[in-house]
Each structure stands twice: as C-alpha cells, then as structure tokens.
C-alpha cells in the first residue's frame, strides 16, 4: 500500500514494528513503532505518558516527511 501511495506522488511515512518487512515491501520513509499489537502506544504506561510516547513517534514521522531522501531510510531517534 505504501508503494502505491508513493507512486501517485504523495510522500508517505510508514510507522511499523517489523522494520525488515517494511524495507522488503519498499517503504521509503520508515519510523519504528512500539509493538505489533500497539504500534503507537504502551498499555503499561500511564495515560499521559502513553500520549507523550505516541506524540514523540508522530513527531518523528512528520519530521521524516520533511526530509529529502534518496534511498530507503529508517528514522531512528
């Protein structure tokens, strides 16, 4: 799906837990997520902490969308 979005000319960032799959599938901008059943959250945290964590990941994803890249790039911390 990520490739078809890219193909129409829309930059796309893939937030996913299993980065190697994302690389295999052909996502260009990749942001690692927390865990498969809760990629953008962590049920062990307090609600506010969890929201902060989610916001951090989203901010990283948005940053990835503003960066010029030529090759597949994984945006770590």
């Amino acid at each position: 799906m990520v490739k078809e979005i890219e193909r129409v000319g829309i930059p796309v960032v893939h937030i996913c837990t299993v980065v190697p799959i994302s690389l295999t599938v052909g996502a260009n901008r990749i942001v690692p997520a927390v865990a498969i059943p809760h990629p953008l959250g962590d049920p062990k945290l307090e609600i506010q902490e969890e929201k902060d964590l989610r916001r951090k990941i989203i901010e990283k994803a948005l940053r990835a969308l503003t960066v010029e890249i030529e090759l597949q790039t994984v945006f770590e911390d």
Partner: protein
Amino acid sequence: MGNIRVVHYLNQFFAGIGGEDRADHRPEVREGVVGPGMAIKAGFKGQADIVATVICGDSYFGENTDEAKAEILEMIKKYEPDLLIAGPAFNAGRYGFACGTVADMVQKELNIPAITGMYEENPGVEMFRKSVYIISTKNSAAGMRDAVAKLVPLALKLVRGEEIGSAEEEGYIERGLRKNYFSDIRGSERAVDMLVKKLKGEEYETEYPMPAFDRVPPNPPIKDLSKATIGLVTSGGIVPKGNPDHIESSSASKYGKYDISAFDDLTAQTHETAHGGYDPVYANEDPDRVLPVDILRDLEKEGIIGKLHGYFYTTVGNGTAVASAKKFAEEFSQELKADGVDAVILTST
C-alpha cells in the same frame, strides 16, 4: 475403458498455416494429429489418441474471444474427449492467453481435465495458473521435447484422477496453493537445517517462497508542515465499532474509508480493530494506539500541521494478497491525491 480421447488446441503457427499474417485465421477443426500433436501422441505410447485438433489464429482469438470460445467449444464437444491439451504456448503471449482460456473453458463447460504448457513469463501464466495446470516450458519451441516429457505423465494422472504431486515434482507452474502434509522432521529442525545451509553458502529450498516486490523512488519532502494536509492509512484493521463493512479478519478482500472529521479521539466506544492477526485487546481499549487520531488532532489545533484529512483508509493486513493490497491502495491513493492530501502516515501492526 478404451484409449483416452484427446483433443489438441493449436494456433495457426504451430498448425503450419502461417505466421502473424495468418493470425486472423478463424477456428477450424481437423481429424487426428497436426504439428506438435505428433510428438505428444508419441509420448502417450499408445495410451491416448489425439482424435482431433482445433486450430485458431491468435489474433482472431484475442480480438473475438467470445465468438472464438463458442465456436471452439462446439468443435471440441463433438469429439467427446476425455482430455484437452492446449499448446504448449512457450513464451507466445496471445497464444498463452488462448491456451489458458480454452483449457479453463473446457474444464468448466465440459467437466474434463485440461492441461497446457507455457514459459514462466508468459502473461497467460498469471491469468490461468490458479485454474489450469500449466507445464513449465522453455521460452521457445526448441523446448518441445522437454515440455512433452512433463506434459504426458501429468495429463495421464489428471485423466485417471490420480493424486497430483507438487509443482516441482510434476513440472507444472506453481498454482499458489499450499497443501498440508505430515513431515517426519519437525519444523524447527527443518528451519535450522536450512539456516545452516544458508550460512555455509549451500543450496537450500525454502518451504515458503516470498513474493517479489518492486520499488518506487521516494517523493520530495513536504516543505511546510503547518500548511500540509495529512492523511491517515492503516493496515491494522481499525474500523468504526461494529465493523460496518465487514472487513475480513484475514485475507481481506476490501478496505474501508471512514469519516473522522467529527472525532478528536478514538475510543473503545467508537472504534475497534477487525484484524485477526494480533491480540486485539490493546487496540480495542484505545484505537489511537494503532490510528493516532488524538495526537494528530492536537497537532492540528496547535498549528503544527495544517489539517488532518477528514477520512482515513483502513484494511486488515493479515495474509492479505499483495495483489489485493496493491489494488486497494491504487484506488484510494487516487482519492487522496484528488482530495489534496499532501502526505500520508501509514501505520502497520
């Protein structure tokens, strides 16, 4: 039972009528063997007779498919065959299409087995591999002998209703079917054996080949987030509570498009996951853990992003065919584009 009765399908070229200039040849039937039928007949060693050969030009078939099918079916039917053999078509695309179409039709309409042969990149392969046994051939007629050697034994098994072995054992093109079997060696041991071979640089054979993926170059970045419309897409199966469109929990055949313009936050009361490939507890408790509407709404209010697009697109990425996912995204990407979405965040579980 007497000898197996076979009808053979050929194009104008293999029937010796002519090349491209005669590709508009209309369907015709001849008694007995024509052209490559000789080699196939010899391969059967007296166990089967080619009672008739149906010939049609590839262009005629491609351009008048419905008429050609009807005419050809009538011709074949008259001979009351036990089996249809088409081609082999090697790497001839229109011929492959014709062979696959005729074989598929005969199986469905006459309830008899059919078999053909093609080179792996013949477009007929993608079209018919799932419905028709297609012997894997070389890319030209130079591979006729090899093709016949594989075709004849499989054809006999099909007619006799015998068990068909794997694609590799029988020499047909893999049909995308998985068949369960009991192995004496358990999975962990087989996996470790494979890994050891891989590390040693030795040949090994995967039990589950991965599909080939193509690549799309990255688009230029967005310049100003504060003016950008951001769209949300997920393969994590988030849907409005109750899954109104019944997106399947695995092997999804569809995607959903849902309005989020009225939501600041997804909750257990409003949304849930339809995904059957991960523990749904956390996503159902708080769907923002998969589709982060709450944060994006905050960022929108703070002016960090211009706007969160009013709809999100979702499907279940669980055993879903690459071809299906591709088709879904081809459709909704056009909509995203038309709706002026500047960038997309796609989340996967």
